[in-house]
């Protein structure tokens, strides 16, 4: 009962509050900034050379105002905004009219999800294992070499690695496809050939995410292991003549892992942003590409949909990870 009260309920409350705050920010942005999104849209349409009757233009403006939920007082707008969201309706895309934002996102989402899950799993696992060993064997040469590599990789933004890989595999060696999510004309089926094709295409985008993610996890884990190594229970186990394998696996890595689980949750937002940019570089057909098209077309509604969905998705992922944390740490389970 205390677990539910002290751990579960606060976390659930926080979950809903963060979503509420994030979505409220999204609601406020077009209303607090000096631009009128509707007039912007109309200007863009005019700039593209749409010739419409003056009356038709007024109709469009009215439609857009309604769609943006810009009618009535702010409070009413806020109410309508939530009412639509709760029904899971993000409205229509302006530049792929009459496609609905929901449907566009539904097509792109699995790509991003797959890319994210794959690269996060790899970079977290590999980074932690290698970082853990490097932290335990600090004085070894390979540990120092990896440390220096991480010192160079760590400060660079995700897209740097995307560009480097793109140049390398586009001009030097052509081992992997450099663009797209699957071969042109491949039909999505649950066959090994198709899955192989998809994995093949995701290799470079995933690798570019894994390089930086792995380096970050490596550095953090190395430091954590160095700290855990100094804890009394590790010293005691050494004095008790516990075999090294047990000490490294059960005492050091397992305890150093705990903050890394929380760390993973906290870095979801960054990893997601990184994935979006990587997708744009590689023309990968996920949310990133969708966002890029929306930006170039000025499709504000689509961007808003992607943003709101990302807020919900990321906070949910964090919540799930938070809820699994007690499985790893008995101190939270039994208080």
């Amino acid at each position, binding site marked *: 009962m205390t677990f539910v009260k002290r751990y579960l309920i606060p976390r659930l409350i926080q979950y809903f509050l963060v979503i509420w705050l994030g979505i409220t920010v999204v609601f406020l942005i077009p209303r607090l900034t*000096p631009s009128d999104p509707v007039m912007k849209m109309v200007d863009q349409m005019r700039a593209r050379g749409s010739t419409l009757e003056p009356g038709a233009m007024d109709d469009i403006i009215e439609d857009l105002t309604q769609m943006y939920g810009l009618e009535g007082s702010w409070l009413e707008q806020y109410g309508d905004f939530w009412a639509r969201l709760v029904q899971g309706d993000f409205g229509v895309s302006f530049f792929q009219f009459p496609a609905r934002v929901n449907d566009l996102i539904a097509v792109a989402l699995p790509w991003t999800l797959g890319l994210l899950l794959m690269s996060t799993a790899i970079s977290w696992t590999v980074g932690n294992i290698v970082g853990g060993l490097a932290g335990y064997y600090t004085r070894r040469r390979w540990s120092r070499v990896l440390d220096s590599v991480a010192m160079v990789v760590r400060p660079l933004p995700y897209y740097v690695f995307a560009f480097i890989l793109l140049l390398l595999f586009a001009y030097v060696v052509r081992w992997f496809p450099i663009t797209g999510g699957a071969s042109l004309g491949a039909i999505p089926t649950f066959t090994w050939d198709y899955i192989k094709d998809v994995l093949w295409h995701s290799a470079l985008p995933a690798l570019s995410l894994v390089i930086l993610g792995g380096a970050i996890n490596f550095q953090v884990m190395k430091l954590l292991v160095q700290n855990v190594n100094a804890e009394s229970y590790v010293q005691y186990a050494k004095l008790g003549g516990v075999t090294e394998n047990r000490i490294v696996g059960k005492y050091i890595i397992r305890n150093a892992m705990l903050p890394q689980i929380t760390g993973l949750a906290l870095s979801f937002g960054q990893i997601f942003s990184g994935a979006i940019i990587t997708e744009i570089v590689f023309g990968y057909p996920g949310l990133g590409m969708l966002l890029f098209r929306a930006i170039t077309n000025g499709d504000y509604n689509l961007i808003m949909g992607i943003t709101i969905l990302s807020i919900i998705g990321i906070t949910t992922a964090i919540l799930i990870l938070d809820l699994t944390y007690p499985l790893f740490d008995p101190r939270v389970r039994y208080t």
Partner: protein
Amino acid sequence: MKVLRDLFRDYRFTVSFVVLVFIVTMAVLSFFSPYDPTLWHVVPRDMPPSSEYVMGTDSNGQDIFWQATFAVRNSLIISLISGIVSRVIAILVGMIAGYKGGNIDRVLMFIGDSLLVIPLFLIFVMLAMMIREHMNLVTLGLMLAVFGWAWDARLIRSMVLSLRERDFTMTAILSGTGTLKLVIREYMPFTTPLIFSTLINNMSWAIGLEITLAILGLVNLNIPTLGTMLNWALFYQSILLGRWWWILTPVILSLLVFIALYWFSVSISEYLDPRTRIQRVGA
């Protein structure tokens, strides 16, 4: 002097120091540029590097070297605005939350944690779309600052929390020192190194985001920055057309800035934190 000598013992500090001096020199050189950075076709187009045009020229007819000096200067200005303004927010939030505790702490930290969780990049995209025509160095810097303080406020808060438990806090309170005075006089010296290293990290983050937004075309492309230089180079397909000097100049400059800022901050904070220092010396 001894401090400097010890710092230069760390190769990372030496390298980053030299690079940063170079970067700042470039930024200062922009004041002596023979060309107006906003004008096009002032030099012949697409010339490779030569004695006349050190880094060559681009398809807009601008001299890449002089353009780069402006880009470095403007990127630094954005990052400084973002860094300094967000430091003010982070210090205020961190110190108030840490010192006052209770509900104020809870609310402030909730807002901070939410900012950490929300994909800020998308928020920036939305904001930038709305204010694209008002976008300049100051608004961009401020925009980044308003959202970029959360993690650092958390660090400062936890430091204040640990300082609050120390003896001198009690002594100061009992001898009637006011809160503000206490925080400024007694806490500042302890938090300064932390604030400095977060400032550098924030500047690096701001430069990186500026580049991202610029590549997506979400900033004013007429103001030369590292990001807008990249945008133009990509826009004119400089990679495909083999104009390597055009794309490489901003790429190399930004890589240098990122690595130098990071090494600078890491080497200084390791020096200031004796625990890691002993580790380094012992290793």
